């Protein structure tokens, strides 16, 4: 039996019920870092079992998204209905959770996505992850379904399933407050769904705090399908590290490293809204769904206009950058609102894509989606699409039950958000997501949908930027900018530096195709590891070229856990995570034809913006060539199936549920 099979059978074998593993005198031995547990919770049988996480699995997948994907692939059988009890929800803290640097409290939530049918996965910041680790658990595997609404109560070493009937119907803010009140502890941290998750809106998200969200791919819908209203945790135990003193010094170095970048300084003041200043001025922003590539009248959305609403900037656990606005809206018809956000994504969702020119519209809509527990991006993307269909006469007021989906109609947008969350009226159709909505509407509506594999794209216009375009086509969770977005492509860095970073020539021109497949591949590996160790992408090469990446990750892992990795080994972990995600998707029936872009990318040229971005489409032949190069870099064949030698090299060839190609 291979080492891997050994570990899997260890995982699957029944074990003692959850007990508090920490009482007693903890001796500082070399296993201290490994005492953290994975808990299997079956909501149908109410059986809860906790086991240690084998060190070998850590070495292969690290933690967070890495282990979550490994578990997803091995536990969720092919063709499972994502809304059935057979789907499983995986919650995983990053390997470095608790380290006071780089925003290392991030947590990964995964399942088979009810929106796309492929890998469902979303990352959440805030404070839930560290609290889960303080309670002694690093990973949760939740299967089955309760008959009545329930929430998980996790405290030092123990897990209970509690009644949540009194929480059902409550928004994400009230839910968290009520759980804290019920347990008489203000320090309880929660993952909660709002009414959107309860109503099985396919892109319902999971929320924590005032705005932290595991936004994409409908993880809140999966929770709702299990009648799981929330996961609440309160942990008071220690998080141990293998080299605490050196780690402390290195954390200072890391925080200084990131705060010395102009990017982090700007972000700590203006949040992610600062990105908009650059991208909209240049002409890289979807406007009116996809009709234009710059929001000409969008100056009110620039971050300086947020100042009049902002009362402070908040940070997630372990983050020196503090990029979240806390804002107050006092004078609108929807006031008073106290909320956190908005992010760059929301600027697009409720601003540029739907032709709303005022910051206030976004501030209200941001609050609504957070309250109801909806993915801001998906919501905005679908509404923008619906507005274009309305403009083109493909749908009309009969279809929208009277809603006037005219560009810029903010009241219609607020009402549609409410309808989507409650599955009412036209919102009920949009609540199904692109795949079903396209099928139901027909009439060529799919031409206007800016989505890949059923997931909406960001408000980014990738026609001028081949690297970004390749990234959204190949992302394992659908059109997604976080799997690989090589933002440094926009910085015109010297080619010598790019070659150093990426290991081979990459053009410094963001409109070029040269070397961009390599860029995307490299970034995918880095972000897979970023999500597996649980640090914030904004403190990596995602944003600033001299920000932490492989070398720093290596050192942090060594000082926190004692595990030694070379850069090559870490990259291999990234490959393993990404390939196993690919294997999951292939098993579900996805293939090269799904690594595609909407037709409009090839057919409609950009029309405005700076001269260098005008008149751009993605060249179909060059796109296919990039895809070929990209597959080759991953060690996959020309159809995107991992080659035998790749599977062997990554240790994925002997998985018990290893995917087999039908032709073989």
């Amino acid at each position, binding site marked *: 039996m291979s080492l891997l099979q050994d570990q899997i059978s260890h995982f699957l074998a029944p074990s003692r019920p959850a007990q508090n593993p920490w009482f007693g005198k903890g001796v500082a031995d070399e296993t201290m870092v490994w005492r953290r547990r994975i808990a299997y919770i079956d909501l149908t049988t109410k059986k809860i079992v906790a086991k240690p996480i084998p060190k070998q699995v850590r070495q292969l997948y690290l933690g967070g998204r890495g282990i979550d994907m490994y578990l997803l692939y091995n536990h969720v059988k092919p063709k499972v209905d994502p809304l059935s009890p057979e789907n499983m929800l995986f919650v995983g803290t990053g390997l470095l959770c608790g380290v006071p640097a780089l925003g290392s409290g991030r947590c990964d939530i995964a399942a088979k996505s009810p929106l796309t049918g492929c890998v469902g996965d979303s990352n959440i910041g805030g404070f839930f992850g560290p609290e889960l680790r303080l309670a002694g658990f690093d990973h949760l595997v939740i299967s089955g379904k309760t008959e009545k609404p329930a929430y998980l109560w996790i405290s030092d070493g123990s897990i209970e399933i509690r009644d949540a009937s009194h929480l059902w119907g409550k928004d994400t803010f009230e839910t968290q407050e009520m759980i804290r009140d019920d347990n008489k502890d203000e320090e309880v941290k929660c993952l909660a769904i709002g009414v959107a998750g309860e109503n099985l809106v396919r892109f319902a998200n999971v929320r924590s705090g005032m705005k932290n969200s595991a936004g994409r791919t409908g993880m809140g819908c999966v929770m709702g399908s299990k009648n799981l209203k929330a996961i609440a945790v309160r942990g008071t135990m220690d998080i141990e590290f293998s080299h605490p003193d050196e780690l402390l010094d290195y954390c200072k170095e890391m925080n200084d490293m990131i705060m010395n970048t102009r990017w982090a300084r700007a972000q700590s003041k203006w949040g992610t809204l*600062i990105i908009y200043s*650059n991208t909209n001025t*240049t002409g890289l922003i979807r406007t009116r769904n996809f009709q234009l590539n710059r929001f000409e009248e969008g100056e009110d959305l620039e971050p300086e206009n947020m100042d009049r609403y902002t009362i402070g900037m908040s940070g997630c656990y372990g983050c020196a950058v503090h990029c979240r606005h806390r804002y107050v809206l006092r004078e609108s018809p929807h006031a008073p609102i106290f909320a956190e956000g908005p992010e760059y994504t929301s600027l697009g969702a409720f601003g540029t894509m739907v032709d709303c020119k005022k910051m206030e519209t976004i501030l209200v809509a941001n609050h609504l989606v957070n309250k109801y527990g909806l993915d801001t991006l998906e919501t905005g993307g679908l509404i923008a699409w619906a507005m274009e269909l309305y403009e083109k006469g493909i749908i009309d007021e009969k279809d929208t039950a009277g809603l006037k989906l005219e560009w810029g109609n903010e009241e219609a947008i607020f009402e549609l958000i409410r309808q989507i969350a409650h599955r009412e009226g036209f919102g009920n159709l949009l609540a199904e997501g692109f795949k079903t909505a396209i099928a139901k509407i027909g009439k060529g509506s799919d031409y206007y949908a800016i989505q890949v594999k059923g997931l909406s794209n960001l408000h980014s216009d990738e026609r001028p930027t081949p690297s970004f375009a390749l990234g959204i086509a190949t992302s394992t969770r659908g059109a997604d900018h976080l799997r690989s977005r090589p*933002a440094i*492509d926009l*910085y015109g860095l010297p080619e010598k530096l790019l070659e150093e970073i990426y290991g081979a020539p990459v053009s410094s021109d963001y409109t070029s195709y040269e070397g961009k497949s390599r860029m995307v591949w490299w970034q995918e590996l880095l972000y897979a590891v970023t999500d597996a160790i649980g640090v914030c992408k904004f403190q990596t090469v995602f944003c600033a070229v001299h920000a932490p990446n492989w070398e720093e990750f290596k050192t942090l892992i060594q000082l926190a856990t004692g595990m030694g990795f070379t850069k090559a080994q870490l990259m291999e972990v990234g490959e393993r995570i990404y390939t196993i995600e690919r294997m999951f998707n292939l098993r579900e029936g996805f293939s090269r034809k799904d690594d595609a872009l909407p037709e409009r990318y090839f057919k409609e040229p950009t029309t405005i913006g700076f001269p260098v971005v005008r008149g751009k489409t993605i060249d179909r032949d060059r796109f296919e060539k990039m895809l070929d190069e990209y597959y080759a870099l991953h060690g996959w064949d020309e159809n995107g199936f991992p080659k035998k030698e790749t599977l062997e090299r990554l240790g994925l060839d002997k998985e018990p549920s290893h995917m087999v190609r039908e032709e073989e």
Partner: protein
Amino acid sequence: MAHGEELMSICVRVVLLANFREIVGKREIIEEIDSNSTLGHVLDKLAKKYGRDFQKIVDQKTGVISSEFLVSVNGRIARDTGIKLKNDDVLMLTIPAGGG
């Protein structure tokens, strides 16, 4: 239309974002410059006028645009200060920011 040695002045638009906008207090300014000016000339002029971060745009050691900042001319990222400018060119001065 003059030829030869006669210098005409041209106007370029300078879009100021992030810290540059903070310093100047405006989002956009028009700079009048000689017709054979380079990017370096404009940056020099702005550095003298506004000081502070404007003085750090060009790396004194290497003579190219510092990687701390992002300067584009008509959308194309500029490293070399010797780029010749034309009438109605649009410069963008900002910091590198492109995440998501």
